[in-house]
């Protein structure tokens, strides 16, 4: 093989038929190469019956290219794409549970929520729930800021990403439907 490349964080976007068992088939490809998936999100896409998987992994580009080719081989996978950080817009969502007493003590938490572009989505007599959307770095910043007040529970979602590419999913799938070729998915890499 060529020189060892450096591992970097990449975002994978995989379009699939909405079929059970596919998540397993997909993750097997990573686990057999001992690649850790740092985040994974599955959702519907803008095309009915088509799911979009968004995965974040830290790997060398060369290694990842081989993985992506193996993902494309899966019968129910329509397309798989790898993106650098600058080829996508992405967000994660974080929820923080803080004791109501801490919130009521002074205006500090409310100020943090405001300054961080977060919001309070639930408020009851025991605790409040804060929601913050942003990059991992941003949600982590708020975590650190809230930590002195006592975080009762914290959860962060997987990354969701949208590429800057001009490709339209629907047109891409139409092309697959009319073609006997898989060149499209290859050159799109």
């Amino acid at each position, binding site marked *: 093989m060529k020189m060892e490349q450096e591992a970097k964080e990449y975002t994978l976007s995989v379009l699939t038929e909405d079929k059970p*068992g596919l998540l397993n088939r997909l993750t097997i490809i990573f686990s057999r190469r001992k690649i850790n998936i740092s985040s994974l999100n599955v959702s519907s896409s803008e095309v009915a019956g088509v799911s979009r998987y968004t995965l974040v992994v830290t790997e060398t580009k060369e290694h990842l290219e081989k993985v992506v080719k193996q993902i*494309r081989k899966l*019968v129910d996978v329509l397309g798989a794409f790898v993106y650098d950080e600058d080829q996508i817009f992405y967000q994660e969502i974080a929820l923080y549970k803080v004791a109501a007493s801490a919130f009521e003590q002074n205006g500090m938490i409310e100020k943090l929520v405001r300054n961080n572009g977060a919001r309070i989505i639930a408020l009851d007599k025991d605790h409040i729930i804060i929601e913050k959307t942003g990059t991992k770095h941003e949600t982590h910043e708020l975590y650190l800021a809230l930590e002195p007040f006592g975080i009762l529970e914290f959860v962060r979602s997987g990354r969701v990403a949208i590429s800057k590419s001009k490709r339209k999913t629907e047109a891409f799938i139409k092309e697959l439907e009319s073609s006997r070729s898989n*060149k499209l998915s290859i050159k799109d890499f």
Partner: protein
Amino acid sequence: MEAAVEIKEKKETVLGSEALLKCLLKENVDTIFGYPGGAIMPVYDSLFKYENKLKHVLTRHEQGAVHAAQGYARSSGKVGVCFATSGPGATNLITGIADAQIDSTPLVCITGQVASHLLGSDAFQETDIIGISMPVTKWNFQVSSADEIPYAISRAFYIAASGRPGPVLIDITKNAQQELMEFKYKSCEKIRSYQPYPDVDEDKILEASKLINEAEKPLVLVGQGVTLSGAEKEFKQFIEKAGLPVASTLLGLSALSTKHPLYVGYTGMHGNYGPNLKTNECDLLIAVGMRFDDRVTGDVNKFAKQAKVIHIELDPAEIDKNVKTDVAINADAKQALKLLTPEVQEKSYESWLKEFKNCDDKEHEKVKSQALFPEDGELKMAEVIHQISQITEGKSIVVTDVGQHQMVASRYYQFDQKKSNITSGGLGTMGFCLPAALGAKLGTPKRQVIAIIGDGGFQMTVQELGTIMQYNIDVKILILNNNFLGMVRQWQELFFERRYSFTEMTNPDFVALANSYNISAQRVSERAELDDRINEWLSTEGPSLLEVMVEKEENVFPMVPTGSSVSDVRLE
């Protein structure tokens, strides 16, 4: 569901179990290898009345069924089909499925499953075969209602046979087999998310032909892709026009006659001296339908670094996986070769070919002369294979197991007809041979099928002698018996200072064992008798077995030790 295609025809109501058989008939299945059990009993009950249309071969173990289906597929070129019940029946298929996956063999494996309402409850003989088989199947699917059966089966056959072939598993719950459904069938012709045949990039064809036309020391490595795409003729035209020397991988053997003047030998760990050495001297390596397995490349960092590499390969995931290519043609071998041949110039490489000849002379002096023509001492495996090759004129189908006998058979059987080499290459499955051979015979009844097995591998699936007996399947079985797990012993000798840790075997009387199955058998240990015994064995009507007692501690050379460069191929 895509299967819901409107077909205006008389509707027929059948049980799911019968629908399955009707689907198989629609896919031109004539032979099924299988083993019944609780969760697949409705299918077997329907099979009872289809006995005249579908030949079912009852093996003695589900592993036997799947290997037999593999042998059938590889000799006939059709999809191999096997049945097993849920739980242990299904898990027993896994080795064969994994073997078919790595060696690109088209299979449709049908397993019974507990009723839908019991799924996930650890019911009797329930196992998550969909989960278990996922990493080793090209596709799998669980049918839980009868009306999904045509959809699943049509897709299964399409996926198994198209593109780079592979195994598919369809798991059918018992209730789905017992439900009534309206039968209609339409073969699958397209799946939008699955594009098995890429358009050939003509620029790549031109780039490749330019490299070929400019080469001074080209070498072709031919793999099973040529056999799978049925491109033997196109391949021969291509290499003959461009005058290219050809070396074969293990699974590529028999794609080109070993007697062809441009054939320079077999490459890889126990391949010939010339092809291994010259891989690191050629200026252009043209890989056709092969995947640069580590048993071919040795240390991949020292493999053909001086050469430009052209890779003709149908599976895009194989391109640049192990060896970086200069020109990759992502295409079916037949299609690519048809386009490439008109673009290459007629050439010949006399002095370059002479170098292979010189290597062969050296190999002959150091290895072959002793292996093929020993004057005294115990029988050697190579001389036995050589005799068989001479007597059969290289025209038989040779099915091998895994180990020394496999390497010797691959080295010394002089294949002269296409689709004649059936062996477990990628997975290296001991126990593959006996069931695969019976399947191969049923796939191509007109051809002679010879099973070459070691004493170790023979005992891994020896129960299939029962299948051979019951159906009187004309397989000629050769056991090369050294009372050792020979290849492991060879490694222990060479790399573990002769610590023969658990490789010596006390074996049963194989002749008596075969006789107990009503299979005629004989044993030979004398050189003077070898020829006669082989002739008798091969001319016996029906199945017969020949046990040849061979030298206990014979080593297979040449050898590229694991992790070494192909240039470091050892002759002794």
